[in-house]
């Protein structure tokens, strides 16, 4: 987040907020000089850079709006942002002062629909609230840090560590003095520094350049200490001896879940999301995150959801502590069972939905409900499996096939224009002679969605061949006017 301090101030509520457009700079002290600590995009466009003397900035832009910088409050706000990100993206999130967030996305991207989608969603959400952001995903913290600040525009998913070699050495998280010294020696890029022998470097600059290089290329571990939210229901357990066996882990998971459910019970809460963190002896942290469709505090059910993912955990040399927390918890109180006289109560399938959602992902679990559109491809949309009944129905009288080909497949036909069904057609190399046909059912393009559909027409026919197979064919165009379509024939569905 290149302009975090100014973006943060603009998001303040009330009259203290600076004006939304126009430049803004934050002034602070560097020794005895007054310098620009942060400048927003408008100010940077006017030539003001962080680190510039305050008097120079005022000389460049007369009556420049300037506020006092408050680095402590910036860092505190960054921690609050990290807590928000922890709730929504991944169990392991840390603030990376002065202007970044670190997110360990291992095993957390599937809930957001993949790495690309997760980064795009994160950047979109931040931009929508007025925070400029760039995001990069890489194998190590060092690489992600460097790429997010230099190459990401605005997102980047880098799989190979070679992406680092042509970045400037300033991206390596080195102190300013060392960077200046390396520049003086002629080192511009990380690749050049990586290829140099270590001993002379260490002699001149100490261990720091070697350590940062090793961290960026994954030769040295760099654990993240995740942020914690104080009011999150949480259970932490430290073991006398490191544990590693799968059965022991499952047993401890069940114990932790039972303890957490007791805490939730005392607060009348139910968990919507659970994070289980495994602290390894080598200071690494592995995590499991599960979600539930409805608030739940059934210890057995939650433990089963967690244990289903235990196999993805690598215990390494052993696990010395485990933390179970419920970052999203919602009120769960007793509800009267609604039952009609003489009828069996409706079974609760929320537990099953949770199990399946944690197996196939929430995107793969849905109900389909009608949309008011004649175009078959748009006739439905997905809703949550436990959404209340929509009571919407498709119009019952038009024949619709149980299998729809997406996209429709072109077929070779022989048909009389303008409105006769084909006499025969060839699909996937097999010629079929049509015995019976019904149609046309004319569907018009939806001009209110796309300009290109303004004149488009499809004429649908239900046809039956000699063996009784039924097909749903359509002709693009009305058979008379060329602007309504290409007059080619397509197979769109298979009837049963």
């Amino acid at each position: 987040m290149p302009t975090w301090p100014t973006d943060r101030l603009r998001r303040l509520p009330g009259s203290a907020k600076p004006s939304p457009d126009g430049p803004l700079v934050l002034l602070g002290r560097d020794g005895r000089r007054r310098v620009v600590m942060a400048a927003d995009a408008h100010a940077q466009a006017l030539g003001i850079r962080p680190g510039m003397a305050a008097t120079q900035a005022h000389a460049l832009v007369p009556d420049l709006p300037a506020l006092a910088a408050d680095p402590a409050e910036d860092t505190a706000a960054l921690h609050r942002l990290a807590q928000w990100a922890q709730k929504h993206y991944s169990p392991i999130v840390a603030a990376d002062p002065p202007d970044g967030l670190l997110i360990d996305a291992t095993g957390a991207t599937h809930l957001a629909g993949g790495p690309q989608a997760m980064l795009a969603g994160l950047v979109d959400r931040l931009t929508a609230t007025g925070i400029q952001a760039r995001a990069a995903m890489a194998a190590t913290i060092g690489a992600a840090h460097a790429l997010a600040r230099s190459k990401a525009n605005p997102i980047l998913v880098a799989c190979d560590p070679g992406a680092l070699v042509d970045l400037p050495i300033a991206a390596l998280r080195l102190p300013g003095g060392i960077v200046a010294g390396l520049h003086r020696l002629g080192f511009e890029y990380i690749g050049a520094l990586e290829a140099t022998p270590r001993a002379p470097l260490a002699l001149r600059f100490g261990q720091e350049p070697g350590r940062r290089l090793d961290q960026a290329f994954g030769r040295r571990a760099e654990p993240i200490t995740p942020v914690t939210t104080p009011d999150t229901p949480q259970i932490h357990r430290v073991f006398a001896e490191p544990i590693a066996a799968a059965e022991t882990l499952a047993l401890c998971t069940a114990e932790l879940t039972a303890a957490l459910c007791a805490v939730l019970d005392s607060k009348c809460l139910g968990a919507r999301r659970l994070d289980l963190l495994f602290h390894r002896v080598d200071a690494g942290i592995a995590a499991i995150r599960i979600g539930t469709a409805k608030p739940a505090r059934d210890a057995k059910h939650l433990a089963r959801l967690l244990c289903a993912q235990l196999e993805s955990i690598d215990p390494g040399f052993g696990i010395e502590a485990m933390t179970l927390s419920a970052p999203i918890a919602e009120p769960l109180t007793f509800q009267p069972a609604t039952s009609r006289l003489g009828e069996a109560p409706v079974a609760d399938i929320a537990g099953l939905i949770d199990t399946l959602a944690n197996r196939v992902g929430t995107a793969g679990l849905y109900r389909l409900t009608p949309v008011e559109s004649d175009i078959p491809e748009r006739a439905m949309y997905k809703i949550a499996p436990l959404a209340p009944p929509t009571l919407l129905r498709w119009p019952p009288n038009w024949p619709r096939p149980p299998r729809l080909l997406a996209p429709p497949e072109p077929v070779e036909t022989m048909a009389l224009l303008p409105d006769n069904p084909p006499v025969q057609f060839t699909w996937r190399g097999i010629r079929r002679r049509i015995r019976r046909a019904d149609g046309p059912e004319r569907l018009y393009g939806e001009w209110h969605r796309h300009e290109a559909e303004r004149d488009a027409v499809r004429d649908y026919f239900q046809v039956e061949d000699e063996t009784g197979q039924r097909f749903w064919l359509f002709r693009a165009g009305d058979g008379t006017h060329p602007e309504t379509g290409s007059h080619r024939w397509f197979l769109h569905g298979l009837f049963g």
Partner: protein
Amino acid sequence: MSDARSPTALQALRARIAALEAHGQAPRGVLPFGVAALDASLPEGGLLRGALHEVAGGGQGMLDASCATLFAAGILARCPGQVLWCLTKADLFAPALAQAGLDPDRVIYVEAADDKAVMACFEEGLRHGGLGGVVAEVARLSMIASRRLQLAAERTGTLGIAVRRWRRPADAVDFGQPTAAVTRWRISALPSAPLPVPGVGRARWLVELIRNRAGECADFMMEACDETGHLGVFANLAHGSLAPPAGQRQAVA
């Protein structure tokens, strides 16, 4: 069957066998088709709930299973409760299921990555017990897998239907392999009856009961599911008269 002499003894024997087989499982209901000939050929007088059934298409239907899908939808339409539909390839068109009587508010779809995940979801659904029925579109169904599913269905009384569907016609020889399913059906399209006006009439199916535990196999020519999920009895309009009394079995070569 020669049960004319001592029907009561035979019934008592059947009841004893059923009690032995049940050994403490959920009581299993029966879902009749409402077609006399079909119900008569099934030993319980209808499709057994709390059991696994297999349905596949014939001919082109081996690949798209469109008739088999509608057949399964028609069965589930007549069966109360939520329905879980597990699939790998999302080419199912929901309005057609609604036209077979299956209310869209009742169907929950699970789109899994591969056959293995589909089988896991299928078993999970059967094991839960709160659903009316579970359908899975699978290609391979081994004896061991089907046995697991059958046991899960027996325990909870949930109706399980495996819609068999293959990617290549050559793979469909797999359908000859034995499984633990209680019944096995093959549904193929038949030419519909010519109408007096141009158009396409109600679809007709050749419904083959290929495997039937404790019963005989049979073939039926039926009219496809109506909007309530009921199969129709063949009315032979071609000759201007109705076919012989409802549900007459017809031999098909």
